[in-house]
């Protein structure tokens, strides 16, 4: 390609890509710089590794990392695991399948915060779930389900919110597999599980990876579900970051922020690679 052509391509890309790169670049640069003591809002600025070494020693920090990874990984896995059977079910159009597909995608339109409030109301001490349990006679007293320490509430909300997204990606992928290929697998003796693990999953691995990665990144940095429905004795990384910021400790907040970005990056790479490796092993 000639230099002129390259110039043209660069010119065409600049408005979009350029803006994205500038914004991301600035954010990352400021966050990294702040975590090393620059751009301090109050007090003096200057290079120091103090904030990092302090943070790494904190129990609060490591617990928050573990907790965020736990929420991120499980949300991604649950959403994808539930989306697959639905995508396969909706692969062929049938009477009502459009309506079902539309209803399943509704969570995409409901703001997460609203959903979290609704959810808390339903499972609260005097909520309808408890009323139902008592009415059915499973328990005499209401059960405390809100802000449970295993973050089951957060996982339910995350899965509910992200499943439609995984469904969207996987439905497209699953529709691309021809009937005859699935029939051939069946004819060669593959039952339901073998058809899934040896044919469907490998042929939709890109969709699966994309869903896992994007859901993981969203869930690992969860703030709103955690604040409303999460355990009270644990903080997600986003929550921790906000806590530091509220105290005016921007540098520590930046340390948490940079760590979160790295975890999102490394974690999603690991999930994508993991998905492919697992499928590769199944085949041979």
């Amino acid at each position, binding site marked *: 390609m000639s230099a002129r052509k390259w110039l043209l391509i660069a010119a065409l890309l600049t408005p979009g890509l350029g803006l994205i790169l500038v914004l991301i670049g600035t954010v990352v640069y400021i966050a990294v710089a702040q975590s090393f003591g620059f751009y301090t809002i109050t007090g003096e600025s200057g290079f120091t590794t103090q904030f990092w070494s302090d943070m790494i020693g904190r129990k609060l920090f490591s617990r928050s990392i573990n907790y965020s990874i736990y929420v991120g990984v499980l949300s991604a896995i649950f959403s994808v695991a539930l989306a697959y059977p639905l995508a396969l079910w909706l692969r062929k159009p049938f009477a009502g399948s459009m309506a079902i597909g539309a209803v399943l995608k509704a969570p995409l339109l409901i703001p997460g915060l609203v959903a979290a409030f609704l959810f808390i109301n339903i499972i609260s001490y005097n909520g309808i779930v408890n009323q139902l349990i008592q009415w059915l006679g499973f328990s005499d007293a209401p059960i405390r389900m809100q802000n449970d320490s295993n973050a089951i509430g957060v996982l339910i909300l995350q899965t509910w919110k992200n499943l439609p997204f995984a469904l969207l990606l996987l439905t497209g992928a699953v529709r691309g597999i*021809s009937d*005859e*290929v699935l*029939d*051939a*697998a*069946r*004819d*060669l*003796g*593959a*039952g339901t599980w*073998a058809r899934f693990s*040896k*044919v469907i999953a*490998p*042929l939709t691995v890109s969709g699966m990876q994309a869903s896992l990665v994007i859901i993981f990144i969203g869930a690992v940095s969860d703030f709103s579900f955690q604040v409303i429905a999460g355990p009270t004795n644990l903080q997600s990384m986003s929550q921790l970051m906000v806590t530091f910021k509220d105290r005016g400790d921007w540098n520590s907040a930046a340390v948490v922020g940079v760590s979160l970005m790295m975890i999102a990056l490394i974690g999603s790479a690991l999930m994508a690679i993991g998905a492919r490796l697992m499928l590769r092993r199944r*085949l*041979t």
Partner: protein
Amino acid sequence: MVAIRIDELTKQFEAFTALAKLSLEVEQEEFVTLLGPSGCGKTTLLKLISGFLDPTEGTIHINGKDVTRTPPEARDTALCFQSYALFPHLTVRENLEFGPRQKRISAHDRKARVDDVAEKLSLHAQMDKLPNQLSGGQQQRVSLGRALVMRPSVILFDEPLSNLDAKLRDQVRIEIRRIQKEYGLTAIYVTHDQNEALAMSDRVVVLNGGRVEQIDTPEALYHAPKTRFVADFIGDANVFSGTVQGEVQPGLWRVETAMGTYDVATSTPPKEKDVDLCWRPESAVLGDAGHTGKVINRAFQGHFTDLMIETKGVSYRVQSRATSAQEGDTVNISIPPEQLILLERTA
């Protein structure tokens, strides 16, 4: 012993009847061909036998067991798909190994089977390629191989040679029969190529519009077709509508047609007065006796000459090995009585 027994099998798609009350018995190790025009229900029948379609009515038995409601993965059949249906993410070797792996055949056996089939279908140079790196003919052979490695008791082929060139087709055709005999497989083979059907089969089922026209050996189909459809479909035939005049000698019946009178030798007396009369172009004798006709077209074909002849406004084909007749010449045609075939008149 009967390997496949099909009783009164009917398949309807909504209001459309794809197969109507089809009955068929296939012996163990027999090679039966389904022959018929496009859309006559050949693939539908294979899919019913392998279990991908549920019959509207009727039953299917394989090796004495009723499998009408058995799912495909539990039937001891292997289908070679018309559309190949290769696994796009697997190499040729992995495609071939898929079935044996599912059947938990030992690694050693598996390799032996796959290598054997690859050798016979000339696929060894393609083993590590993905299906989208293969030519159409190569994909077709992989699909064929994938069914053959299963060595099932019943193997079903859906036009497995349609994409091969003439030379490869002859070669693979011979391999299919060899493998089928070697492993004692019962085979149902779909084609719409009559030469293939005649050359390969123990018996041929001629289908038309979801119905059986005739089930017979290739020789019987050719020399004694029962209906006009079969006569037309298998080889070339001249067919005329006629009226039976009566028996002129024991076993010799006189039939009146638009182009003249014929005497037909037949052991089975015609049931109806209205019949169709058929003869093969190569049974005509050009000589001094018989009907007079005019040559309207002549085509030299090497070991014979194809003549189009017209008598009383009716044109028909004649093949002759030695004729000097030219276009416009007048010739005399006679057909030996035993070469004339009476067909049941069908609607």
